[in-house]
């Protein structure tokens, strides 16, 4: 998995809702495969927009986005959807879980939508449920008895662990996290994040982690200030 190369390459990127008036401009930003990058910046600076662009949900006005060696602009929308489902796991700030599914079903959900993630497990000879249990355990949710319980029965911190396990099941190449720890208290934040990073190191997952909280940066290979890569037309 951890082959040398580029996981994300952004070049002369412009994004905005009105042509000619870009809301976000990024001259260049590169993340190597296997690298864990902490992207730090205040709220509302356009970090989430950047993640939407990397995920292929938003389309740039100009410039290029290459993810895992493939150009997102060259793909049709459906192909981008499939590509994202197969290769990128997402964790968001809060309320990540489908409320009417059990903890286990939440974790297994990406496998239902991506054949490649199922095949990744099969290739390693791992049963999906066993892998879900392993991931939840690795992220600090040991109790097997609660896996059948509804996701809403968990505390916010536990829910984020479930969301992380879900993002990582089937070994996507890239993990994109958007302020996943901001709803957690300081202790929970530290332990959750170190377990998450450990799992990503083990699996060789590339990580782009976005937060305003610079205290988290020591856990990452590289810290990038969002302001250093972006220019805003109105700024």
């Amino acid at each position: 998995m951890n082959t040398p190369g580029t996981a994300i390459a952004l070049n002369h990127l412009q994004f905005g809702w009105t042509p000619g008036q870009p809301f976000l401009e990024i001259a260049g930003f590169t993340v190597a495969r296997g690298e864990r990058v902490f992207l730090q910046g205040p709220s509302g600076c356009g970090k989430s927009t950047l993640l939407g662009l990397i995920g292929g949900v938003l389309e740039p006005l100009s410039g290029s986005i290459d993810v895992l060696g493939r150009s997102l602009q060259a793909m049709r929308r459906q192909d981008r959807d499939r590509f994202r489902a197969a290769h990128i796991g997402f964790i968001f700030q809060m309320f990540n879980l489908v409320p009417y599914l059990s903890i286990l079903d939440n974790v297994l959900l990406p496998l239902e939508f991506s054949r490649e993630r199922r095949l990744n497990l099969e290739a390693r000879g791992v049963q999906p449920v066993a892998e879900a249990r392993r991931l939840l355990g690795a992220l600090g949710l040991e109790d097997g008895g609660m896996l059948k319980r509804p996701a809403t029965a968990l505390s916010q911190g536990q829910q984020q662990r479930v969301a992380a396990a879900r993002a990582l099941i089937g070994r996507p190449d890239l993990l994109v996290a958007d302020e996943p720890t901001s709803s957690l208290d300081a202790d929970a934040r530290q332990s959750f994040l170190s377990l998450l990073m450990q799992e990503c190191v083990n699996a060789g997952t590339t990580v782009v982690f976005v937060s305003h909280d610079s205290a988290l940066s020591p856990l990452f290979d590289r810290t990038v200030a969002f302001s250093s890569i972006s220019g805003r037309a109105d700024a």
Partner: protein
Amino acid sequence: MIIPRLALLSLWNRRGTVLLTVCGIAVSVALLLGVQKIRTDLRTGFANTISGADLIVGSRSGPVNLLLYSIFRIGDATNGVSWGIYRRIAAHPEVAWTIPLSLGDSHRGYRVLGTNGDYFAHYRFAQSRVLEFAAGGPFIRRHDAVLGADVAAALRYTLGQSITLAHGVGEVSFANHDDLPFVVTGILARTGTPADRTVHVSLDAIEALHAREEAPAPPEGAAHDEGHSLDAALTPDSITAFIVGLKGRSAAFQIQRDINEFRGEPLLAILPGVTLQQLWQVVGIAEAALLVVAGCVVFAGLLGMLTAVLTSLNERRREMAILRSVGARPGHVFLLMMSEAALLGGAGVIVGIALLHATVAVATPWLESRYGVFLSGNGITAFELLTGAGVVAAAVLAGALPAWRAYRNTLADGLTLRV
């Protein structure tokens, strides 16, 4: 397969509103199917009540009226047919058989029919079925009575029991013929026709009843004299109507015209099938109106579903975004919403059909005894299946609107979770 499962679980998660929506559809479907069921069952029931009869003759009134009171025991005759003219027509060379009908009395709310042995020999219903006895046999003596299946069952009468008849057709009669008890000699097998709710006696008996009643001031002397009346063969002055069977169908129109143009007495002869058609033409307007109303109720039920689904869309935007972030494509979201509409419609139809059949099962005995409406038994009809499929199709069609909205939302929202 994940999409239908997600739809099911999502619906279960919102089961309160979902239940109401399903009930709305179910009630509307049950109503529509119920109207149609009563419609078709009434038609087959009426059509099955009399078979093989070529003409029905009564005093001159409306054809539908004559058919209703003579065969279906609905309403009353205004006049009768004189015995003499009945005998004349019965003796006509083209006439194979006749059944005299004398109505106007009752026994505890059930109509009493005065007739003769020809009734049991020639009356046909449900294409070609004959009247069969569950117990006993036809009346022989003057004060014998043959009960319809419902009468015997409802009043718990058995063979050999004495009953008394009343003049008039009310449930409670003040003029009971208490002093002339009848003896039950036969109980008919169930027919699904008004015969089930009829007490059959001989014409003699009817005449004797009325002779008794008029005895204090007898209009004619000897025939109504106390000493002889019970033994002498009483000839009725008139009967209410009679059924005619011809030797050949081809003579029906000619004889009908002859009777209708007969100058000695105002008579009316009808062809039962033709008059039944006239009845349906009258009833058909009301039926069509009922069907339209029922159809509108189904439409309203589906609108209710649409409202519920559309209202839920906004609060489910985050659910959609979560699904999208784990790999669901906008097409999956569209399918999810369509599956929900199909599930709602399908559940509504299934509950609706169950509701209808439960209602029919509960209401049938009451409808039969109270109104003489015979509903066909259980079993889901092709019409019910077709209508059900149609309602589900309409639900899916209606579901396309919220599905499309959800699809557009999903594209616009991307992965952004709106908290």
